[in-house]
């Protein structure tokens, strides 16, 4: 994790209630490279947020949306999926690994899933190396 300190940004729908126990600070300590950005709905995400996050130094961006059936705004998590796909098309066009932007749907109040998703994402990013360095395929 150390090589990616402060290099992963997670945009998550606040309806996911990832930390109902208020343990976000504690959680962040165990993931020092992580920035958690809470948004009112994952459908609020825009492709340029994702690209700009990478352009600003992050090595990966994770979008966490509610499971479709759990979306409080009916189609918010469907929209975010489209926007993420669009941003990934851009990465492809730029010759950057599309895996640097990940989209995952979770059920609300499920911190265990978050940890599993993060572990997998970090492993993927470590295998890719930093943007700007030759990417490992």
């Amino acid at each position, binding site marked *: 994790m150390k090589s990616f300190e402060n290099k992963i940004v997670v945009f998550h729908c606040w309806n996911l209630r990832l930390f109902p126990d208020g343990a976000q600070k504690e959680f962040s300590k165990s993931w020092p490279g992580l920035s958690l950005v809470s948004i009112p709905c994952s459908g609020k995400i825009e*492709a340029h947020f994702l690209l700009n996050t990478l352009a600003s130094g992050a090595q990966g961006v994770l979008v966490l949306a509610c499971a479709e059936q759990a979306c409080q705004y009916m189609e918010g998590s469907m929209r975010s999926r489209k926007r993420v796909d669009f941003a990934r098309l851009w990465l492809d066009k*730029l*010759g*950057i690994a599309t895996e640097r932007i990940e989209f995952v749907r979770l059920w609300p109040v499920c911190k265990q899933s978050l940890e599993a998703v993060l572990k997998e994402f970090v492993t993927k990013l470590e295998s890719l190396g930093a*943007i*700007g360095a030759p990417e490992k395929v």
Partner: protein
Amino acid sequence: MIVAELKEFDEIREMIDRYSSVLVVGCDSCVAECAAGGTRETQLLASALKLSYLKDGRRKVITEACIDRQCVDDFIDVIAEQVPDHEAILSLGCGAGVQALARVYQDKPVIPALNTLFIGETVLRGVWTENCLGCGQCKLGYFGAVCPVTRCSKKLMNGPCGGSIGGRCEIDPETPCGWDLIIRRLTAIGEIDRLAEYVPPVNWSTSHSGGPRRVIREDQKP
């Protein structure tokens, strides 16, 4: 509105490669409506450029700005303070916007990021169609507000060609037959008799074939 679309990224990058600093300028009017050059698209392109140069390990200053209307001087002034800090301007305006910026900032190269396509409308989110050619002699009143010059692939002014099948154009089945639309619309509003009125042939000298057009209104001048 003017409908445009983003150029291929490689073409844009190639055009701006020679500058060390670029001001990416969007336009929040027509090209924002067609999701080609508004604030959102400006930020997207600027981010993509930053990322592209980051990937290549090249330093380049990319700044974004968006103005309400790139084709009007009063709005163009909004970026006056940012322009001197950049070697070039990359415009996400239509062709008119690009040229207006070049006229106002005469010492700066202005590069277009969009291909300007046509005058059209948003038929549904994500779909824009052409429906005005700017011929300079609008006859929509005779044709039930459906333009034969634009909506008929053959620009016929005096009735259908006879080649359409099931209301679709023989040139492209995806395109509705303009004359089918005209007749249906006039029938629906009870004005099919309009087609009995003589409409003189279009005087194309008022269209672009007469060179760059201009409108002068003395009452509007300063």
